[in-house]
């Protein structure tokens, strides 16, 4: 088996006449974390959406373990082992905490994650398992969203704006847990406004600017100024 998990090849994306992505390419190795950084509107969420099937794209633009999966329906993609923690968490409001988690595992592939393991990772969720998901605090809701994605036993987890709207101390806690969560050889793509935080936990990063990749590589290979220039487009 090759070590390449995911390839994005010359991905272009349009919203009507507006072109959001102008030929983005990237390669993700098995295991490890890729940070996706860039200003608002750079195309980060569109890229994640294309990978998980929520944004239409060409079949050959997304290659998953050698199979072209671009443009497949999201419900077909999750079965192949790609799960998403969406921006803003988007829990199912009329479902309890536990029902949200169970639903995440509805089409689960075989693997280590089940209710017991999610509760072991986030004990507070077990206490609140029968409560409506939206009655939880922001940080706890984020735990539900992460747990819900893990329940499908993905090989790749897409984390969109984990820290959005959360208190700094909560963000710190969640980031501290990431290594444990990814411990079993799971890969992750992390979209994050907090660039320092994202680069600190990633082995590789991609900086996007106006729908193009402006810089990529290992975080320590570049100076702060170089990354900042790629981020703001002032180079």
């Amino acid at each position, binding site marked *: 088996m090759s070590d390449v998990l995911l390839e994005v090849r010359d991905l272009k994306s349009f919203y009507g006449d507006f072109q959001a992505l102008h030929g983005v390419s990237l390669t993700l190795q098995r295991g490890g974390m890729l940070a996706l950084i860039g200003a608002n509107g750079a195309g980060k969420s569109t890229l994640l959406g294309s990978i998980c099937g929520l944004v239409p794209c060409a079949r050959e633009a997304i290659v998953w373990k050698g199979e072209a999966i671009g443009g497949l329906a999201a419900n077909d993609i999750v*079965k192949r082992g790609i799960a998403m923690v969406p921006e803003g968490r988007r829990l199912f409001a009329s479902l309890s905490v536990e029902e949200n988690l169970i639903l995440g595992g509805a*089409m689960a592939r075989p693997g280590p994650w089940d209710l017991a393991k999610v509760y072991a990772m986030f004990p507070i969720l077990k206490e609140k398992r029968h409560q409506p998901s939206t009655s939880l605090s922001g940080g706890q809701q984020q735990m539900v969203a992460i747990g819900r994605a893990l329940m499908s036993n993905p090989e790749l987890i897409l984390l969109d704006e984990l820290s959005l709207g959360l208190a700094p101390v909560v963000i710190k806690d969640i980031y501290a847990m990431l290594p444990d969560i990814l411990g079993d050889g799971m890969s992750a793509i992390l979209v994050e406004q907090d660039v320092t935080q994202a680069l600190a936990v990633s082995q590789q990063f991609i900086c996007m600017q106006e729908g193009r990749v402006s810089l990529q590589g290992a975080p320590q290979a570049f100076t702060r100024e170089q990354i900042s220039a790629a981020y703001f487009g002032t180079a």
Partner: protein
Amino acid sequence: MEWINAIVQGILVGGLYALFAAGLSLIFGVMRLVNIAHGDLIILAAYVALVIVQMTGLHPLASLIIAVPVMAGFGYCLQRGILNRTLGKDILPPLLVTFGLSVILQNGLFEIFTADSRKLNAGELETVSFNLVPGIDIGVMPLLMFVTAVAVIGGLQFIFYRTAMGRAFRATSDDKEIARLMGLDNGKVYAYAMALCLGVVAIAGVFLAIRSNFDPSLGPGRLIFGFEAVIIGGLGNLWGTLVGGVILGVAQGLGAQVNPGWQLLAGHLAFLLVLALKPKGLFPRIDG
């Protein structure tokens, strides 16, 4: 005592109205689809039962064993083949398509069964009654209808809140995009919901056909009763729908008690009154 009797009989008829309304409420709740053809589907179910009874000689209530799966299967295909294509951001296409479906069903039934009115004969069951207190007789058939309505709504409630299918219904209703990320195929979820809805419609159709004469033109009237019961009870609340049906039935019973010509009017007035005082219905659960 006559008035109390009118109220009791109204409550029992309310069960039938709740059966008309339950499917409507379910479909709106899961996919925000207002099914204009719902009443005609009830009448279609009555004719399906009629054909089954004529072909097999089964008792009308026993015909449900065949009618429910036939209608549920039809619902699944209808949703997958036609209605799923109309669902999107715009609410007009499903309205227009179900309106068209209503016209097609009515005319199709006219063509096949003519405008003659029909009835399903449930035999002795229709005439048996018992005396509750002096002056109030309860017919076994209306009672059976009411008990069935309570059981159906209890069953739907169970499916919605206690089963994997119900979880899928609620999740898709909450956020269909994220539901897909969980591996749920929206189109299939909707098709199961429509199958369940038409299963209930089959029960409603058979009771309607036992209770009174029917012909192909009756659909829109049943749709109105269903709408009124759903809206009185509050959108998305199944037990509320049962209460809505009962209020409608009681209002009609009381209206008829005053003057036989006022039966329908009284029902509509009760509906208007609720709409004026509580525009979201008595027990709303869904906004918009």
